[in-house]
């Protein structure tokens, strides 16, 4: 028994050594040589990247996804490896991916994947230009630059179409918020520079909270002071359940000095794609535009 254990430990040690040696010789980066001899096996760890890959026609080369990559529906059939916080590394290794995409902020995950011989590319999609860059990078990494260019052009034309629809309309001040979290006085809103901020601009509105960048959490008094004309609350997942939506609506009705509340223009939106910086941002902008400008719906056939 004891000897067995020692042999086991020796084997584990050798395996680790092998791994370490593997690390010391990093795989040569092949920025433009994606479509080479080795077939691509892509691991997508971010919902927007999964959508982008499928939109570029690379769906059949995706071998694994994160827990949160539910769109498009074909993606749901793919094996799940967890998310960047809790990843099942054995599952990752079993899928033999050659290329992994994730978002920044989890350096150790990227290092861990690289150490296992998976080329790992970290992408940023916090802003609209970053999202377009991400699509181009995915194109380069997969050798499908033409498809990337086509997707960028398609999204840009979608956005331009929404811009045309709202041209000439008054631009109300819109607050894009997430539901209040349990026991918290603060709500998260879309700040300056986020891609939602850009979509509001496309949809013919002004962001009512341009004071801070990214996704600040603000107190009720800040919202009162911002005095938005329209409030869009993005309730996804569990928050989108009917009783939660009702609770969110009730929570807002109290703050009667806010023009949006007084004018009955607090809208609770439950479509997940509204905050996914992917191929459907044009659709998101259109949904925002039609909510912000109800006259558009009457005009459209």
């Amino acid at each position: 028994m004891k000897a067995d254990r020692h042999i086991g430990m020796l084997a584990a040690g050798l395996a680790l050594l092998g791994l370490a040696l593997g690390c010391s010789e990093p795989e040569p980066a092949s920025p433009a040589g994606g479509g080479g001899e080795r077939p691509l096996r892509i691991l997508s760890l971010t919902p927007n990247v999964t959508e982008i890959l499928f939109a570029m026609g690379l769906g059949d080369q995706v071998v694994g996804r994160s827990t949160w990559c539910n769109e498009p529906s074909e993606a749901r059939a793919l094996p799940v490896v967890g998310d960047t916080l809790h990843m099942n590394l054995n599952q990752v290794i079993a899928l033999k991916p050659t290329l992994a995409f994730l978002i920044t902020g989890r350096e150790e995950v990227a290092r861990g994947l690289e150490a296992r011989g998976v080329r790992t590319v970290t992408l940023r999609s916090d802003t609209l230009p970053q999202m377009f860059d991400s699509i181009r990078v995915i194109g380069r990494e997969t050798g499908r630059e033409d498809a990337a260019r086509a997707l960028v052009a398609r999204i840009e034309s979608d956005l331009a179409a929404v811009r045309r629809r709202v041209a000439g309309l008054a631009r109300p001040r819109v607050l894009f918020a997430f539901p209040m979290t349990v026991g918290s006085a603060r709500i998260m809103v879309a700040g300056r520079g986020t891609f939602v901020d850009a979509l509001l601009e496309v949809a013919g509105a002004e962001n009512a909270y341009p004071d801070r960048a990214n996704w600040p959490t603000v107190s009720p008094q800040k919202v009162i002071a911002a005095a938005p004309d329209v409030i869009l609350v993005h309730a996804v997942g569990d928050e989108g359940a009917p009783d939660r939506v009702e609770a969110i609506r009730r929570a807002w009705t109290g703050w009667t000095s806010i023009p949006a509340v007084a004018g009955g223009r607090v809208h609770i939106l439950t479509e997940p794609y509204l905050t996914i910086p992917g191929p459907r941002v044009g659709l998101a902008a259109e949904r925002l535009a039609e909510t912000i400008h109800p006259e558009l719906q009457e005009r459209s056939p």
Partner: protein
Amino acid sequence: MTLQPLSARRYAVTVLAWLALWLVVAAAALVLGARVWVWESGPQLNDALRDALYGVATASVVGGALALAGLAFQALLRNPLASPYILGVSGGASLGVILSSLFVSVLVQPIFGFLGALVTVGTVYAIAQRRGRLEPYTLLLSGVILNAFYAAVIMLTMGLVRPETRGDIAYWMMGNIGRFDLQWGLVGVVAVLAVGAAVVFAFLAKGFNLIAVGEETAGTLGVRVERVRHVTFVVASLVTGAAVALTGPIGFVGLIVPHLLRMVVGPDHRRLVPASFFFGATFLVLANLATGLLEGAVAPFPPPPVGVLTAMCGGPFFVYLLRTRWRRTAEVQ
């Protein structure tokens, strides 16, 4: 310990003085918290005042409730370190509230908070009781152990839920007073319970004084020690559970406030009960105001939750108690 006889006048002065202090602080917190000078329109000022009033009301009822519970635990267990937080009662209530929040609606959470608190008190009591006597060391240790156990179960829960819910639970555990979706009904429930507890403890105060001398002495003087104990434990658990359901666990209020007051008004529980109720309220209103004023100071970071602030003040105070007052008490026993 000798207590002076308490005249009705002296009692009334105590109650009114602490009530007046709370009123002054609450009014100031309302004005400063709402930043009444920044608003341009009447409706905006109304909304800001409503936000500030909710904070003052919540801080008052929760602070009063926790201070009363702390005073009662300290009196009954004859232990200066007893408080809802340290005995694990807040932890038990938190676990009850967290588990119930995953499955049932907000309105019944106080009931689960109360159950968690009561189970904790019962367990601590059962562990620490030997031959009808409560052993102070065992008592505190069982509180510490229960706290660790609850922390583990809460962490397990957090590991199993979705990341968004995980963040909510973590934030809730820090203890928060303000809310976006105002829960006036729940504030009302806690207010009624806290006032009720103050009344019950006011009637039991004489018994607390005699128990402080010694349980056997109290027994021979006609105090039904067991009954006082049971009523106190149930009432203190009830208010702690409800307070935790409203704001999450806010530590050290139940520890600090009774001690500060013993230094000011002396050991007589007849005066300590109303003083703890009003000064607990005052203390938490001040702490909440401080977090509100930090909002601008530490931008762009959100201000610390009030529970974080009280724990940061409470830690050093706890050390002070360990080094001075507790040592003396322990030597006596």
